[in-house]
């Protein structure tokens, strides 16, 4: 896959570089300049996730149009954009659920373009979903135990040949699950049926479970959609705490207050491509962003 898209990638890189030169070197943006989009900052130092020239169409609809951006290690990078800007499509492309028509995705320096979602996850990129996925018939702690990657007990043969290893690892994972639930202040939910949780609790559990997978970068798709303000604050605190402990985040969110307080930098997406990138203040005062949200040149 990567070989076949190589030539295209190069051309995308050159466009990206061209765009980068049009950017003001110190990160400020020229308001109202001739270019309608100046794209993302593509010269970051310690990059965990790098997306270059991604392209995806559904029939006649161009959902992702030459999207390029980077996520720097240790940041909480926000991603905003009006409805239909292609945020979720981009997430699906990055995490392997969709196959891009052109462009490349690199996680930790490893090309994962066109890889299966579980292969992308193996490389350290874990994602959550917009609507929480409930696991029927499982308790919360049981659902948590799905999180850890590459468990010994996930091999059918090992269950019979390495029973002791399975036991010790399962015991450790169970302890971790309880510890993380405690850290999220939802330790009391451990024995509840996963289907009995509220939407907000489920989002917390999803975040907690994703942490058991020890991701290099965690993609959150609208973490506070449909969550009450108290829980949303709790989620925000947890994300900030985990970030301090070293996890990198890429967060899609419609709740402007939430994302502006949490994330820096923020990538703005419009009609499938990256419109601009900057600090929350820069993005907030950028006319093009306001235009995009109000419906283009209206």
């Amino acid at each position, binding site marked *: 896959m990567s070989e076949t898209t190589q030539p295209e990638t190069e051309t995308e890189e050159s466009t990206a570089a061209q765009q980068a030169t049009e950017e003001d070197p110190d990160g400020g943006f020229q308001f109202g300049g001739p270019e309608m989009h100046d794209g993302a900052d593509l010269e970051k130092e310690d990059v965990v996730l790098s997306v270059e020239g991604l392209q995806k169409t559904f029939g006649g609809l161009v959902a992702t149009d030459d999207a390029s951006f980077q996520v720097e290690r240790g940041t909480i990078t926000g991603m905003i954009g009006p409805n239909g800007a292609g945020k979720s499509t981009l997430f699906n492309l990055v*995490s*392997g*659920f969709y196959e891009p028509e052109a462009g490349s995705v690199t996680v930790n320096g490893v090309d994962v373009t066109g890889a*299966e*979602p*579980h292969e992308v*996850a*193996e490389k350290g990129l*874990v*994602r*959550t*979903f917009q609507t929480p*996925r*409930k*696991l*029927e*018939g*499982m*308790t919360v*702690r*049981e659902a948590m*135990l*799905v*999180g850890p*990657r*590459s*468990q*010994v*007990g*996930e*091999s*059918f043969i090992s*269950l*019979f040949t390495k*029973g002791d290893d*399975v*036991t010790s690892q*399962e*015991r450790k*994972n*169970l*302890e971790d*699950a*309880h510890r993380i639930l*405690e850290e999220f*202040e*939802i*330790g*009391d*939910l*451990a*024995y*509840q*049926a996963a289907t*009995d949780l509220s939407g907000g609790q489920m989002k917390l559990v999803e975040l907690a*479970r*994703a942490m058991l*997978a020890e991701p290099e970068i965690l993609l959150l798709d609208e973490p506070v959609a449909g969550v009450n303000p108290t829980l949303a604050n709790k989620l925000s605190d947890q994300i900030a705490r985990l970030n301090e402990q070293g996890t990198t985040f890429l967060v899609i969110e419609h709740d402007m207050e939430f994302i502006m307080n949490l994330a820096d930098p923020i990538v703005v997406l419009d009609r499938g491509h990256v419109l601009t990138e900057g600090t929350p203040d820069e993005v907030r005062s950028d006319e093009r962003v306001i235009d995009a949200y109000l419906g283009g040149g209206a």
Partner: protein
Amino acid sequence: MSVTDRLPRTGLLDGYTRAERGVVGFVVLLMLLLVYGLVTGGLGPTYFLYLIGLVGMYVLLSFGLNAQWGYTGLINFSVAAFFGIGAYGTALLSADSSPIAGNMLPVVGLFVGLVVAAVVALVIGVPTLRLRTDYLAIASLGLAEVIRILVQNQRNYTNGSAGLRGIPGFFEGWPVLETFPQAMPTLIVERLTLTVPFLFEVDLFGFRLGQSFWQGLLNVSLVLVFVGVTYAMLRRVHRSPWGRVLRTIRADEDLAEALGKDTYRFKMQSFVLGSVIMALAGVFYAHLNLYVSPGDFEPINTFYVWIAVILGGSGSNRGAMFGGFVVIAIREGTRFLGDLLPAAFPTLGIPFTDLVVSFPALVENTYATVVSNFASTRLLAVGLLIILVMRFRPEGVLPPQRELIWPEATEGPDPGSDPGTKAVSADGSGASRGGQTDE
């Protein structure tokens, strides 16, 4: 769920849910009926053992489908095909009428039957398991028919619709067990007539326990070993991280993928495992029935197994076992029930003669038809049963336990011990701990 229908302690069946008590009651009742049949001579001991063998076979088939559908959510409509592959696999190798090999040891047949089933499962799984589960359902439906028609028409290889006769017992070639039935003495239990004056008079016993009885006993022991080993294995894998991934796939395949699980690999393992267990049931059947024919591939056999799993509770090994039991009770019970009912519509005694006369002839005719053809109403019984289960207990009679975690990992100090205090202190919600595993 299980918490709410836990009953107050009443002694004998403490700690069981209502459903579990119901199941125990059902099984005890069935056993009493069978014992009654045995004692009064209405049910021959050899036929009784044959029935037990059939139950074991259905339990195995249900285990197999449960490992596919119950665990992983794979819709497999070719249960009969994998069953038939097991049966024909061993029959073609061991039967003396086999057109290709014949007269080989049944143990070889067992091995070959299972391997062929695994290969067929792989072949059908490779193109379909990458897609949504619907595609497997359609492909498996086709596969079952393709294999049935192949077996029926490839006379040079399978004897076609004549089927295969002369299949030896499973233990042929084994040191002691091969001649066990012949070596055992024939026991004759004399007929006894029990008379309670002025009340009733019953004939008791009165049968010979000959070679076929001992053969039956051997078959039952064999199927018990098959079922026992399979159950022990499934129990272990169901509560393991492996089983947990399968349950995650069933609930939400995308989620499993996002968490780094290679769902294709897990689905394939689950599919092959289930198919091999179905083939094991087929191998047993061939050596129980000593005759196999293309009729064994009929789709109805697939649907009986589906019914067993749905009824028992998908995802639950115990449920699958119970379901197998019920299906045989229906399948074989309907043969006899017709004889027990009065042949004509009951006339409710003389005082109501006027009423009876007013019954339309249609009712009486329908009744007579149903009773005289009771065996063919079993599909009706099965259909009604499914509707009732879906309406009143969609999770099945014995749904899986609430929490399935590798048992040894929860032994000793529970990592989440003392949750009672935490539950209150954390946010005051005092969330109930629900039914922690106690089954």
